[in-house]
């Protein structure tokens, strides 16, 4: 592998023999829950699943809820096309995830925790269960009243949406709920719930290990810390990389692309497509284009029509189907670009479809429908010729 120019970080997969995850847990619970929350807030950690909600606040809100029953849930329903980091984390450093969950449970006062692993990762379950059993035993030995359980999905992208995930865990169709109430108030079993992405939970335990300062020192003002990126597409070095947030896209492309990149899809199918001419001005992070980690590179041999078509087909099938803008909107977008391609609709129809995505963006019930506008508009605007002809 080439020497990377970008600042590579080794927090997530690194292993501190002197301070293993359970040691971090032991060390952390010597502090008060409120001071752990302050550390989280101070670190600037935002959710790594894509939405970027400040983790410390999420924990604080849930802690403040008055309820005898609360839950910690690890969202391992990693389904965003182009994202594969959570699988790697669960495979390689599950102890860190478990420690993060236990710390969270300590902070908010939860007795049960769940890891919801997507069905596509069923092969992970056996190994993971062993680690969970060991960890649960360690907690038992410490007389800690917190137990972690595994739950698995069965092939439904939308279950990565937190309220859909709760529905699924409750034995129902994975249909997102109306918000409010938010999970911090009424999540799993309608009880206050912290639901964090796999990677986020690892960072929480790492922040407890190394202190918020070291974490904060990485990244930029708006995007503190580092992030695990899943790099795929037209790159000779596809894989998983932990990098500082706030980097320039042009640096990323220089590092990872094959020299012929014409576009990068940041944030998966639901993210944004950045064309070559905007590589220079694009920052990866909350101040620019945020991502759950997916970085997919397309070189000049690729048809952006096919890319968009794939994405739309994906959303059409994976929409839960309950709300009109998403269920029907996705089908209209997919059939719409096909009709334009075939000449059955004029090129100007793409403008009608763009307006439709703007409605989806503000009127769909959940993030799935709301985000279809991102790939649609960014691909259609930047690669109009490829879509039409």
């Amino acid at each position, binding site marked *: 592998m080439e020497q990377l120019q970008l600042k590579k970080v080794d927090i997530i997969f690194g292993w501190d023999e002197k301070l293993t995850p359970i040691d971090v847990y032991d060390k952390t619970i010597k502090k008060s829950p409120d001071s752990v929350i302050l550390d989280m807030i101070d670190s600037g950690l935002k959710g790594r699943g894509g939405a970027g909600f400040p983790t410390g606040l999420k924990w604080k809100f849930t802690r403040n809820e008055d309820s005898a029953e609360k839950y910690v849930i690890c969202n391992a329903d*990693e*389904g*965003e*096309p*182009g*994202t*594969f980091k959570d*699988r790697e984390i669960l495979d390689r450093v599950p102890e860190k995830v478990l420690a993060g969950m236990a710390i969270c449970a300590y902070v908010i006062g939860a007795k049960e925790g769940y890891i919801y692993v*997507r*069905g*596509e*990762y*069923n*092969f992970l379950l056996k190994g993971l269960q062993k680690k969970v059993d060991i960890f649960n035993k360690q907690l038992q030995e410490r007389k800690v009243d917190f137990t972690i359980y595994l*739950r*698995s*999905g*069965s*092939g*439904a*992208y939308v279950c990565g949406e937190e309220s859909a995930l709760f529905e*699924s*865990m*409750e*034995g*129902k*169709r*994975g*249909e997102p709920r109306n918000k409010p109430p938010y999970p911090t108030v009424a999540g799993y*079993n309608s009880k206050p719930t912290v639901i964090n992405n796999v990677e986020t939970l690892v960072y929480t335990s790492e922040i407890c290990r190394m202190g918020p300062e070291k974490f904060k020192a990485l990244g930029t003002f708006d995007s503190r810390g580092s992030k695990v990126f*899943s*790099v*795929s*597409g*037209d790159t000779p070095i*596809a*894989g*998983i990389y932990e990098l500082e947030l706030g980097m320039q896209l042009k640096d990323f492309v220089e590092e990872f692309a094959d020299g012929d990149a014409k576009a990068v899809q940041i944030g998966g*199918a639901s993210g944004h497509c950045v064309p070559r001419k905007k590589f220079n001005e694009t920052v990866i992070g909350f101040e620019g284009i945020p991502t759950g980690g*997916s970085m*997919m590179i397309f070189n000049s041999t*690729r048809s952006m029509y*096919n*890319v968009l078509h*794939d*994405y739309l087909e*994906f959303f059409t*099938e*994976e929409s*839960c189907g309950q709300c009109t803008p998403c269920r029907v909107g996705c089908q209209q977008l997919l059939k719409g670009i096909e009709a334009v391609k075939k000449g059955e609709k004029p090129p100007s129809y793409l403008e009608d479809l763009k307006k439709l995505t703007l409605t989806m963006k503000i009127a769909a019930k959940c993030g799935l429908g709301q985000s279809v506008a991102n790939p649609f508009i960014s691909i259609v605007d930047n690669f109009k010729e490829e879509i039409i002809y």
Partner: protein
Amino acid sequence: MTNTENLILDLVEKHGRERNSLMPILQGVVSQEKFLSEEAMIAIARELDLSAADVYGTASFYTFLDTVPRGKNIIRVCKTISCHMRNKDEIIGVLEDQLKIKVGETTHDKRFTLLTANCLGWCHKGPVMLVNDEVYPEVTPQKAIEIVEEFMKKNN
């Protein structure tokens, strides 16, 4: 009592009769029987005091909880963008030829079902396929054939 009913009783025993147990029970049946038969869904509905339509509605939401008969081995080839870019079509083509079925179909001997799947989470190692719960990244047409041959040889 039939095997299916026994299986469901075992699963109910293990996971409980709450609605919250529905997913693990459905998954337990599928892992044994590959799909949810009418008999299975009715038995589950009875045990959990749900309507059969409700069980069917829930199961059919999830791609992996098939409600139509499937073969003993289910092959799912990822069809999403990065696997598409790495020639998943070629993989599907050789599997169709080898198994003499089209995507969505099951072989006459009920040993194989060939399906496509949305992103399986191996975009850096596409094309990828699942056979049952096992994952096979970076498959080539040749490797795909060999993998299936292995399953054919196995006495199942």
